[in-house]
Every structure is written in structure tokens, then in C-alpha cells.
């Protein structure tokens, strides 16, 4: 019975004299490796060249802002609940009068931390977020010498302010720019 078309019949015939002395087969093998000497090399020179990630790559989290540069996060805690690795902690605070240009809604996250050593980059936080405040970007966490260097604070996670620094904001948006334009 044949399940796939990929099955290959194995040659079980006894070896011929030419195969037994082994030298000819060695020459054939050497020819194959020699041809690889001139093939195009697949190496990517890492720090200078970087592999482009796919559009659905799930990398470091980014805390989003709206067009006026206000933080979208309302510290509802849904992302922390959804997180299977329990990597997210946050503390909520109430927006004071005069802070309207900083936070979009009346409640905001005073403290927001993601432990990148615990995070498994599943993207459930992005799915859980009702405010489109968190999404996974196309970068991965850079190496660090210390454990605490991997606990990302709110300042590390926040996207650059589109009002103050529009270029950096656009760059941080990356592939999401088109997706956001469609919305």
C-alpha cells in the first residue's frame, strides 16, 4: 500500500565489484562536495545583515498610543489574565484633571512591567486587549547581563510619541502602519 508518492525503493542488490572497492564511490562523493565549493553561500552576516521577519512575527511587546500621543492602556488587566506565563504585572491609577493629554481614558497604568524571561511571545495579550493598547512587534529582546535587565518597564515598552517624535513613531509602527491605515 502506498500512502504518499514520496516512497523510494531501496536498492538491496549485492554490491558490484566497483562498489566494493569503494574508491569510485568516494570519487563521486568528493565531486558532490567540490560542486558545493562554488555554490552561493547561505550565510547571513548577522549584525550587518538581518533576516526580514514575517509580517506575523511575534516579538517584543509595544504599548501603543493614539494619534494625539495619549496612552491607550486603561490598566484593565485583561492582558495579565490572558498571559499563560504570568509575565505581566501592572498597577492602575486614576487620571487627574490636567492629564488628559497624557492618557486617553480616566484610568491608566501607573506601572506596567513585562518579564521578558517569562514571556513566551504567544500574543495572547494582544488578542485580549480591548483598547488596541498592546501589540507584538517584529524585534526580539536583546541580550543582557542581568536578570533585572529583562524586566521591561512601561518606559521601555511605550511607543515613541507621534506628536513629539513622529519619525520614531512611524518606525516603531513598522508593518502595522498599513494595517492601521486600513482601520
Amino acid at each position, binding site marked *: 500500500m502506498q500512502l504518499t508518492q514520496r516512497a523510494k525503493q531501496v536498492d538491496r542488490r549485492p554490491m558490484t565489484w566497483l562498489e566494493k572497492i569503494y574508491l569510485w564511490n*568516494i570519487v563521486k562523493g*568528493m565531486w558532490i562536495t*567540490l560542486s*558545493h565549493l562554488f555554490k552561493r*553561500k*547561505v*550565510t547571513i*552576516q548577522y549584525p550587518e545583515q538581518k533576516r526580514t521577519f514575517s509580517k506575523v512575527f511575534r516579538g517584543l511587546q509595544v504599548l501603543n498610543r493614539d494619534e494625539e500621543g495619549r496612552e491607550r492602556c486603561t490598566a484593565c488587566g485583561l492582558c495579565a489574565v490572558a498571559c499563560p506565563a504570568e509575565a505581566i504585572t501592572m498597577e492602575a491609577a486614576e487620571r487627574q484633571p490636567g492629564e488628559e493629554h497624557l492618557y486617553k481614558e480616566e484610568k491608566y497604568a501607573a506601572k506596567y512591567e513585562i518579564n521578558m524571561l517569562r514571556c513566551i511571545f504567544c500574543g495572547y495579550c494582544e488578542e485580549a486587549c480591548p483598547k488596541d493598547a498592546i501589540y507584538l512587534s517584529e524585534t526580539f529582546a536583546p541580550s543582557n547581563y542581568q536578570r533585572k535587565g529583562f524586566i521591561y518597564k512601561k518606559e521601555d515598552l511605550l511607543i515613541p510619541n507621534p506628536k513629539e517624535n513622529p519619525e520614531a513613531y512611524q518606525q516603531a509602527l513598522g508593518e502595522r502602519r498599513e494595517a492601521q491605515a486600513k482601520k
Partner: protein
Amino acid sequence: MRGNMYLLQIDKFFILEKFLLVGFIISLSMLVAMYATYAERKVAAFLQDRIGPNRAGIFGILQPLADGGKLFFKEEIIPLASSKTLFVIGPMLAMITALLTSAVIPWGPGLPIAGRNVSLQIADINIGILYIFGVVSLGVYGIMIGGWASNNKFSLLAAIRGASQMVSYELPMGLALIALLMLVGDLRMSTIVQDQIGKGFFNWHIWYQPLGFIIFFICALAECNRTPFDLPEAENELNFGYHQEYSSMKLGFYLFAEYINMFISGVVMSTLYFGGYDIPFVNEAGLGWDPWVLSVLGFVVLMTKAWIFIFIFMWIRWTIPRFRYDQLMNLGWKSLIPLALLNMVATAVVVLWLKK
């Protein structure tokens, strides 16, 4: 008294000349071995569609220096349970025997300096090739002593493997060589080269002894512990082989000695079978060029031949998987020795027949 008289007769120029030559050839072997490690990594990379070391200097040219520096600064560990003296002697022996072989190799035709003909051979002894064999078989002590002194079961097993392999493959190697020596009629290295020079490319011994060369080549691979015969360092069965307990530059010496051996065996094979410093398709004597030019050219040609052999060694290493131990022994004792014997008898018959 007579001894003193004899000593006085040795002229100072001769001693200076030999010292310079020894210094040059030892540093040459070291340099070639250094860049052979680099070449090995590059060849391996290119055969596997990679680029290889390219960070230290342009194209990674300084990589061997970086590797050497790293090995020098590593912590030197001598295991408590080892035999300490032997443990230190092992890598020294490996290195010394590797460097000694180059003494009888003619590196080029002579140079006329100040009215003397300076030979580019450290010692033109009349048993040249026998000397090489003697030193190469001493090389087994480096492996054996290193493996024994480590007091490690894997090291010992590897050392035993290495010893038995080298002893078994010296036999067919010697037998293949006897056929060649019957053609030349002399053990002197310079005569072996002279025998191939003059009548052009087709006078090289490879055309008279193709089977002998193949046997010699296979044995040279085994003698250098190169793949497919690198059983003494089979890492999947013996962890790292006979130099497992070694660290720092002592390990470096073992690895380095392997590359020097590779270079020397390349040179020996080019000398014995590929005309030594003979430039192919050219009759050097008929050109009437300056002997200096001819010497430098001859040396470059010999080095090119040696590097081609080094490349082939590496090419084989990254193509062919390792033999099993019984396969190694079967090949040595049941195939190569009978073949070499056959080759020897056939050559003897032809030589005798031609003489009549």
C-alpha cells in the same frame, strides 16, 4: 685529539648556513600549519555552503593568531591523577617528531652564495626516506604517552587505537615505498628528486607507480590521523580522543602537530611521486636562468604541490565519514598489504626484465 682536529675543520659558514636553514624551515612549517588551521575552517565552510571565519582581519586572515592567543591564555589544567611528567612530555614529543621530519626534504635546487653551492636541504643523508619513516613511527609515542598519562579510560582507548592504527598502516606504506625505491635504486631524498627531473612531466614517479601512490596516500591519511581514519579522536565514541584531558597550549600542540604532519606528508608525497621541486612541462636546465630564480621557483612549485595535498586532505575530511574500527583493520591488513605486496613483486619483475 683527532676528534678536536675534525671539529676544527668544520667551517663556520657551513654551520651558519645550516642554522639559518633550520630556522627558516621550522618557522615555515609553523606558519604553514597555522594557516592550514585557517584553511581547514574555510574549506569546511565552503564545502558546507558557509563563509567561515571572516571577522579577524580581512577575510579572517588573523584568525590563526586569535586562536593561538586564545589557547595561550587558557587555564592550564594537569589532572591530579595523571602522571605529570609524561603528561607534559606527550605534546612535546608530538610536536618534536612532527617538526623533525622536514630535515631531509630537498626544498629546491642549490643556491650559489659566495662561490659555494648551498644546498636547500638540511641534511642530505643517504638513508633519507628511512629517516622519515623512523621519525614518523616515533610520532606514535606522542599519542600513546599523552593518552596513557591522562589516566582517562577514553584517552587510553584512543591512544591504543592510534598506536595500532599507525603500526598497521606503516606496513603497507613501507611496502608501497619499496617498489618506488626499486625504481630509483637509492634512499637519498635528493636522488629521488633528481631521478624525476629532466625528462619532463612524464618522468614523475606517479606515472610508474600509480597503485603505489594510492596505497601510500591512504596510509598517509591514516598516519596523520585524518578522516576517514581519525579513530583516535572519534568524538562520538571517545569524547575527544587521546587529548581529551589536555587544555591550553598543550592541546594546541597536539592539534598543531597534526597540521604540521599533514604539511610534511604533503611535501613527502610531492617529493616521492610528483617530482619534488620540478616545474612541470619545463626543462629547467635548458632555460639557462639564474640559479636563484630557479631555486625560488622550485620552492614555490614544491609548496604549491604540498598545498594541493593539504587541500585534498581537507576535502576528504569534509566528505567521507569515519571508518569503523574493524573496517580500518580489514582495509589495512586484508587489502592494502596484499595490494602493496603485489605492486612490489610486479615492479621487481618489470625492473629485472628491463635490465636484461
